[in-house]
């Protein structure tokens, strides 16, 4: 009875002024469990081939682009189901892509910027 929450990972800025990339090959499929940092997808930019590691540990819910499809930076790439931080206890190992592992209070509990003014 673990709470899960969906996280959509968008195509990150790959540097060098690139604005898009083509999906070469998915290294995981919907339904697969994937560990954080495990190989997720190979992309082709105009300059090189890049392997993107998974930014989350969790289950792949859906892929937003087929192999051969062009994806713009910032567009959805893949959605994960990840363990929601249960209450304020232990957090999952989710983090932003590339770089530092966030501190405990950093992962968004819910992305509730537009919380309606209720209660």
């Amino acid at each position: 009875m673990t709470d899960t929450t969906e996280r959509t990972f968008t195509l990150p800025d790959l540097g060098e002024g690139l604005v898009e990339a083509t999906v070469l090959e998915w290294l995981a499929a919907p339904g697969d469990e994937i560990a954080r940092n495990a190989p997720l997808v190979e992309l082709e930019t105009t300059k090189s081939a890049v392997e993107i590691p998974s930014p989350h540990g969790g289950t792949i819910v859906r892929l937003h682009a087929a192999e051969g499809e062009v994806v713009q930076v910032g567009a959805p790439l893949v959605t994960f189901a990840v363990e929601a931080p249960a209450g304020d206890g232990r957090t999952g190992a989710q983090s932003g892509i590339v770089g530092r592992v966030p501190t405990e209070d950093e992962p968004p509990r819910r992305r509730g910027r537009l919380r309606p003014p209720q209660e």
Partner: protein
Amino acid sequence: MDQVFPAEVPIRCMVEGDPAAAGGAPPVLLLHGFGSNHEMNWVRAGWPAALEGRATIAPDLRGHGGSGKPHDDDAYTPERIAEDVVHVLDAVGADRVDVLAYSMGSRNAWELALRHPHRVRRLVLAGFGPRDPFAGADLYALERDDSPFGRLYRVAATLPGNDMEALAACARGQASRPFTPEPVPGAPMLFAAGERDAVAEDVEELAERCGTQVVRIPKRDHATAVSARALKEAVRDFLAVEAPAGSGGA
């Protein structure tokens, strides 16, 4: 960790693990292709994870990345590049390595294996073939050359940090020593290339002369084979083979 090894032409090199450690599989030396660098060719393509458990030594070849960039053609012959590599291997205490090389890196890995056979245990030459990669190119006017190599040069021109004068000199230096398939290095070799890789045309012919195999990566070309899972699996398998019992032991 990136280090810079000082020399007349300083060589920047990423070193992971302990290349001087005795026992176990030797470190893997990674040699990138023309116009690229170790970061783009290997790190971004997912090779550190693919080679997990092995020490790795990944230099930027002279003229590339964070290494020195002389502008004279003679600085870029395969023998000069092989000497840079040996200098780095000496500096990190790696007596003997497995080599994984791509494209122009493969041309120079071949040179390294011929000149320093005792330093190379096994050799994977990827994105490489016996044909002249500079065929039809005007190496003195690459900025407007329309051959396949000229186009590759102009892609390299868009990468930050590349010194196009140095890269043109590199092309001419490499071209001054055309590849010949004789003699063949003694180390066990594996060839690998995308099935649509024009640079690796006729690599099957070369592999046959060398008495070895080619792994073709389905649906990939010269730019995209380097990150392929199929390539990583083939390399891991080929480089995992134990040295024959008793060899090199003391």
